[in-house]
């Protein structure tokens, strides 16, 4: 008599088993097991899905046979919102894409629209943007590493990276007036110039940061437990990484040296020297190594920017109908007052046309496709968000692994749902 295992709570299975013909005597030597796949939802509120990602998993025991990311829980319709407001009014919404690196988003958006207007960007403004974008990269990677640490059981790392991130946020706060929602860019400029002595403080931060970064990384890089969890886990081949549209550290972790700061320099990145770290295997460990090294390279860029910080204007000079006049002019001159009203109510005046600009953000390539029919409001704005594309590889990379490996992979992909769902 064959012993048949059925889940006790599964009535249909039992009924099915009853319908089966009695096995022929002699063939029943080997017991027959009918196992069943289990489906499990991870998220949308789960500590290791970093926001509101839901993973619909199908499990065979503890092995994944399927993993489908379900996105959209944080969808706010940013692209549609953009069509209903002037270019500058949309800047606060770009903060809320990748909310771990708002300064980098602000800059990418502003450059996209400026390319549409064919504005001449003065060197000082370019330097401010490079500087803030690199600081955003450091803060984003600090958060990414810390969260990755937590995901694989290393709490301490998170504490130390958060302490450093806090110092950066203090600097952001001083620069922009807010820690997280910086809204720093304007079309043709930035919201305000650098505060007195701020560059010196950034420099001081960089000096004390490098030894601390080494210390933090030393907690993980040669740590057996960490390596057991990450080495050869979630390997993404070069070909896969490219065909799934991965960008940023995740792509470079797989060994593809694509970095727009080198390949399609913008905002004066060509003046600075830095290396592009690439991984060799494409596993979680490589993605971790790439992020660690990128922070060092960002600090290198920051130091170069500060060393030769250009003087001059921090807004585009020729942007008469685009960049609002300074406050003291508005308060003293009738003409500038009218101009202020025009720019605010009609929006920065753009020519008709379309432009696609992509920037190397901390999470990958953030692209803005702006279609204008003239005037101060975009006709269509499309956002290409790196996290969305990076997540698309999950169904491919998770199959055949354990649940605990999925947690490590999610941590190593370092995505942000604000930008994925937008």
């Amino acid at each position: 008599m064959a012993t048949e295992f059925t889940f006790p709570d599964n009535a249909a299975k039992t009924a099915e088993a009853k319908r089966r013909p009695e096995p022929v005597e002699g063939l029943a030597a080997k017991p027959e097991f009918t196992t069943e796949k289990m489906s499990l939802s991870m998220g949308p509120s789960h500590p290791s899905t970093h926001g509101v990602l839901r993973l619909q998993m199908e499990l065979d025991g503890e092995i994944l046979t399927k993993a489908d990311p379900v996105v959209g829980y944080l969808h706010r319709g940013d692209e549609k919102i953009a069509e209903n407001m002037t270019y500058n009014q949309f800047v606060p919404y770009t903060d809320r894409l990748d909310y771990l690196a708002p300064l980098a988003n602000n800059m990418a958006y502003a450059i996209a629209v400026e390319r549409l207007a064919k504005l001449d960007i003065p060197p000082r403004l370019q330097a401010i943007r490079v500087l803030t974008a690199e600081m955003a990269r450091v803060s984003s990677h600090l958060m990414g590493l810390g969260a990755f640490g937590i995901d694989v059981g290393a709490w301490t790392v998170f504490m130390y990276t958060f302490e450093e991130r806090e110092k950066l946020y203090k600097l952001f706060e001083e620069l922009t007036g807010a820690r997280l929602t910086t809204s720093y860019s304007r079309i043709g400029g930035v919201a305000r110039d650098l505060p007195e002595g701020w560059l010196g403080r950034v420099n001081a931060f960089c000096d004390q940061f490098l030894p601390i970064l080494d210390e933090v990384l030393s907690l993980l890089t040669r740590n057996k437990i960490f390596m057991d969890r990450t080495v050869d886990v979630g390997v993404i081949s070069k070909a896969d990484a490219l065909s799934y549209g991965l960008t940023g550290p995740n792509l470079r972790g797989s060994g593809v040296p694509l970095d727009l700061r080198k390949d399609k320099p913008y905002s004066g990145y060509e003046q600075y020297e830095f290396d592009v770290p690439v991984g060799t295997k494409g596993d979680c460990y490589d993605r971790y190594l790439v992020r660690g090294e990128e922070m060092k390279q960002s600090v290198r860029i920051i130091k170069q920017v500060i060393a030769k910080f250009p003087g001059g204007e921090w807004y585009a000079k020729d942007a008469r109908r685009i960049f609002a006049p300074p406050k003291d002019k508005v308060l003293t001159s009738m003409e500038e007052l009218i101009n202020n009203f025009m720019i605010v109510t009609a929006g920065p005046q753009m020519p008709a046309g379309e432009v696609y600009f992509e920037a190397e953000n901390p999470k990958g390539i953030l692209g803005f496709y702006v279609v204008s029919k003239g005037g101060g409001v975009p006709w269509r704005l499309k956002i290409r968000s790196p996290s969305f594309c990076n997540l698309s590889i999950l169904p491919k990379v998770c199959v055949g692994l354990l649940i605990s490996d999925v947690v490590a992979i999610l941590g190593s992909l370092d995505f942000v749902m604000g930008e994925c769902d937008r």
Partner: protein
Amino acid sequence: MAIVPLERKPLTLAERSYLPGIVGGLKTTLKHLFQPNVTMEYPEQRPALPPGYRGAPTLVKDPHGREKCVSCQLCEFVCPPKAIRITPGEIPADAPTAHVEKAPKEFEIDMLRCIYCGLCQEVCPEEAIWLQNQFSLTGYTREEMVHNKQRLYELGGTLPDPHLKWDKKLAAEVAGGASH
């Protein structure tokens, strides 16, 4: 252009024994144990806010106590989440500031909608609306969180005014009138 492949050395036998990891981790923890605290006993201690901090938007008066807002409604227009609602009003002809002509009758900012973006302050042609240091606003009801004009002036207070544009205008008018 430098592309650096990151090296991955296999663990040594000693490292594979978990011991260096444990000892190293403990060393780091011990080192940090004797360093000054980085956290803060909020709300007893409060963080120092830098100048230009973007807290809650408030309305301010000039040093002579005149309300600066002329209800041009530019901030209402620009506010991305549409948190501001203004009902414009006239200044009575016998008031000392009658030459300013307009002031808001009602001015409401819905702090449940406001995203502290600072655009209202940026566009205001009168420097009447300022994001000041208030960063923790709470309330028990939704109504409480809609700041009316009185509350906005309470929060805002008086700020120095380097321009005093309307006083200058009045002075010019008086001088002009006297010369006629």
